[in-house]
């Protein structure tokens, strides 16, 4: 079915071909009849061998031969010579078939089946494999079979590692060899290293030595032919192994250490909000923990929360992950704050202790062993709102003239303190060994020689980014150069434009969120005629940045009002970490479906949402269909569907995203999905809605 020319090279004798086909059909028919009737005579079995030589894909013939072998083995009563001759015959048939098609699953499996009976010398099998791998070093069937034989022979990992080295020495352009090398190293690194350290084997004394040798090995592959991809992915894996943090650590949190937070006395919906006053229900004060990798085991035993008022109830910590119910990078819980009338308005000291008892483990199995403590103060305001202040907040308009640049003043020292403490200091990181930085530095200098080609630019960009990741407490360096490299790649390799664009956006956001000054310059007061600016909501504006992917969420846990309009976003994955979000603008982006808004299901405080001017409803293919909790991915039971809402025009995606939200304002205009019936559906779904597309809802 592959690689045959459309116009045959010589004229076809149609009659001869038809005769040949007819003959083959007759043989197959005879064979099937033998199979049905369990005829295993010598003649019948030979017929199957003949057929398999013509067509090794005739899987029923392999099954038939196995049955014949079983019967014959039973008859010869383990007389070793007979057994050998029976099994030898099978191996011969397999070899003939493989010659016809050395990618035949059936043939390879039959060989394994025969070998499992304890026949054939393993060295002979390795010899056969060497022959096959010489013919085609990329045949994955041969590599799989090699693994099978090696396991049967109990060959050591070191020997197999050497084999991959031999294959690479023969030809650097052998992705399969690199893959198998990475397979052994990744699965056995710690075992291999510790074994070798015990044996004091030369050359392998520590992780950095192993990595340095591997970098040297693969570098040649990258430099020999800049377009050959064989070494690219191996190199990327080495980079990951160099910089990855061994330990799960707490990276940031909400609230931030040392915060001073005021809570309003009673429920009020759209009241004023400033950095330290929260305008949602006082019942739901969130605590958010952001780790450097996915962890499980965050619960009231491993995280203790103590504060002035009694909190005897076990807090329920939830992982903020749409499909994983056990682990996540970001975990959240909510403190149930009692009514202020019952307490005097004093400050409560809250202490969150993370990981002082065992139990938090990364998904790679490393225990959390660097406990953190976060302390902050909560002030409960006794006086409720003045009656003059209507709970009906005006409609939010995301226009430039509604925003006034934030002027840091003494009134809110907390914002500045907060931005100074966004990243948690982890002792283990600041005392990290320097070998990581040295390797990255060396590699960067080497690859600067390759900057005129794609893989060179990409590798340098990744190395510089990796360097920054080793120093999370310092301001990132080389951002400008990295951004330039990605821009150049967008021009050099236009097929992959969006890949480079997405990476460019991530670096841009790292740059924007990397300093207090940069963040402050993007903070604005929202100005409504009914309010003074004192105490008006503070908005982080990241609009008009041409960003196509979001990141740096660990720096944004404090954000309540966010403007992401006029960008190129098609996903908000990661935004679920921003548990304080109450007003969000996503207008004028590239959202294609409600399933892309899955993260919103976690934002319990969201009141105002603008998704106008996007592409929802314009696309026949939904690229986030399976990244969304629904019956299609078996992450929501069918009984959870509320049939009432589903009419002939089903809006199941919108239904699932919005159904539990207490939105007061929603804008959806400028999407192909909008229609009168859709708006009616929305009004029914969201009883708390006051404004839909700028129009008051009755």
């Amino acid at each position: 079915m592959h690689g045959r020319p459309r116009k045959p090279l010589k004229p076809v004798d149609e009659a001869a071909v038809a005769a040949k086909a007819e003959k083959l059909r007759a043989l197959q028919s005879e064979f099937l009849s033998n199979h049905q009737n369990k005829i295993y005579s010598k003649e019948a079995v030979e017929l199957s061998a003949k057929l398999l030589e013509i067509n090794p894909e005739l899987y029923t013939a392999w099954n038939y031969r196995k049955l014949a072998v079983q019967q014959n083995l039973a008859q010869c009563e383990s007389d070793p010579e007979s057994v050998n001759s029976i099994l030898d015959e099978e191996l011969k048939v397999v070899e003939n078939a493989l010659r016809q098609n050395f990618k035949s699953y059936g043939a390879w499996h039959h060989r394994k089946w025969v070998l499992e009976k304890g026949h054939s010398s393993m060295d002979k099998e390795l010899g056969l494999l060497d022959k096959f791998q010489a013919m085609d070093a990329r045949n994955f069937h041969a590599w799989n079979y090699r693994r099978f034989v090696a396991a049967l022979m109990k060959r050591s990992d070191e020997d197999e590692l050497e084999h991959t080295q031999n294959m690479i020495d023969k030809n650097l352009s052998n992705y399969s060899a690199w893959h198998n090398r990475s397979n052994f190293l990744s699965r056995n690194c710690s075992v291999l290293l510790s074994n070798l350290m015990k044996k004091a084997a030369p050359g392998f004394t520590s992780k950095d030595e192993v990595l340095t040798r591997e970098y040297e090995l693969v570098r040649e592959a990258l430099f020999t032919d800049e377009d050959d991809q064989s070494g690219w992915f191996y190199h990327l894996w080495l980079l990951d192994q160099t910089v990855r943090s061994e330990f799960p650590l707490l990276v940031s949190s909400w609230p931030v250490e040392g915060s001073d937070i005021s809570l309003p006395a009673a429920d009020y919906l759209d009241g004023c909000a400033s950095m330290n006053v929260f305008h949602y229900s006082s019942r739901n004060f969130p605590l958010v923990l952001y780790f450097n990798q996915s962890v499980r085991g965050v619960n009231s035993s491993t995280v203790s929360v103590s504060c002035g008022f009694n909190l005897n109830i076990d807090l329920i910590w939830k992982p903020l992950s749409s499909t994983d119910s056990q682990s996540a990078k970001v975990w959240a819980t909510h403190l149930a704050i009692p009514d202020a009338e019952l307490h005097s308005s004093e400050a409560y000291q809250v202490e969150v202790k993370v990981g002082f008892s065992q139990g938090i483990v990364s998904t790679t199995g490393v225990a959390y062993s660097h406990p953190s403590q976060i302390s902050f103060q909560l002030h409960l305001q006794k006086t409720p709102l003045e009656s003059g202040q209507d709970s009906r907040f005006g409609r939010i308009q995301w226009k430039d003239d509604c925003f006034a640049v934030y002027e840091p003043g003494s009134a809110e020292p907390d914002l500045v303190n907060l931005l100074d403490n966004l990243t948690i200091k982890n002792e283990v990181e600041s005392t990290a060994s320097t070998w990581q930085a040295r390797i990255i530095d060396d590699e960067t200098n080497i690859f600067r020689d390759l900057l005129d080609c794609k893989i060179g630019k990409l590798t340098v960009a990744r190395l510089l980014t990796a360097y920054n990741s080793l120093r999370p407490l310092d301001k990132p360096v080389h951002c400008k150069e990295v951004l330039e490299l990605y821009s150049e790649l967008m021009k050099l390799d236009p097929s992959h434009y969006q890949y480079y664009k997405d990476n460019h956006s991530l670096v841009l956001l790292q740059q924007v969120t990397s300093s207090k000054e940069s963040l402050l310059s993007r903070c604005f007061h929202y100005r409504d005629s009914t309010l003074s600016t004192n105490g008006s909501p503070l908005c982080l504006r990241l609009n008009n940045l041409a960003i196509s992917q979001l990141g740096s969420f660990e720096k944004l846990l404090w954000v309540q009002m966010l403007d992401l309009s006029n960008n190129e976003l098609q996903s908000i994955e990661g935004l679920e970490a921003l548990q304080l979000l109450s007003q969000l603008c996503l207008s004028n982006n590239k959202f294609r479906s409600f399933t892309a808004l899955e993260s919103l299901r976690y934002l319990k405080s969201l009141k105002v949402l603008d998704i106008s001017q996007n592409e929802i409803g314009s696309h026949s293919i939904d690229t986030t269909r399976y990244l969304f909790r629904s019956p299609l991915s078996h992450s929501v039971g069918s009984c959870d569907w509320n049939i009432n809402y589903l009419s002939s025009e089903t809006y199941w995606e919108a239904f699932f995203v919005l159904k539990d939200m207490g939105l007061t304002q929603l804008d959806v205009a400028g999407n192909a999905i909008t229609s009168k019936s859709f708006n009616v559906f929305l009004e029914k779904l969201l009883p708390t809605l006051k404004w839909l597309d700028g129009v008051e809802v009755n």
Partner: protein
Amino acid sequence: MGELAADKHVKYILAVEKRKDNFESAVLEHLRMNGAYWGLTTLDLLGKLDAVDSNEIIEWILKCQHESGGFAGNVGHDPHILYTLSAIQVLALFDKLNVLDVDKVSTCILDESDIAGLQNEDGSFSGDIWGEVDTRFSYIAICGLSILKCLDKINVERAVNYIISCRNVDGGFGCTPGGESHAGQIFCCVAALAITGALHYVDKDLLGWWLCERQVKSGGLNGRPEKLPDVCYSWWVLSSLTMIDRVHWISKEKLIKFILNCQDTENGGISDRPDDAVDIFHTYFGVAGLSLLEYPGVKAVDPAYALPVDVVDRIFFGK
């Protein structure tokens, strides 16, 4: 650029179904069930499923079912999980899943009392009683049982764990633990994880880069590094990219052009590469690829179930 010669392809498919006089059809008799799935799904994607006699086809399908519940590639051949899925998928196209005794079919895949039960201790699946293990079969079991609404009959957790054990450091998946990443296996594993709500085990950025680098200068996609492009990878790679929301990382225009250039606009059908011989396999993957690229005139295809979206929605959301 050229256009999709939809009518020619429809004619080609209908003709191939009947051809008996060429060697190729004799040699491929054992996988006629797959061929039925490829041809009929293509017809449905082009809006022409009514051009065939569904009753005749269903009758033949049922003749291929064995005592054990599994389906063979053709009448008289042995049952195998590969053909069982195609049978289920074709019945789904015709909205005739009710002709199946679901218990019987699902039992053949997971019967625990019978040593022929196909899910193994480690969560993997065998293709048939002869025990070949491959992540393709994990996908087939999960996809097939999901369509039959009885996914809970297998040990999903173990099935997922086995698939994850086949994950490689480049983000891709192989056929067995340690197996090299290959686009076909990646599709099977990613789709299986999608259906079981386990896509959080996929590093989307890492795998997305590996997958998007399958696009070569000609605009076509290959199946793994340093191999030739092939239209069938327009499905395996593209559906994987779609499921992890990274399809925007390739050039859609260039790929569309490549697929259209692989058409035989005279006689119908699509081939693996421009000017090669056409076949049903590549015709289906070319059209399905165009569907994922939102080519006009082609119905939307579901990237995990490899069936038209309206068929899948009917199964999961239909009343």
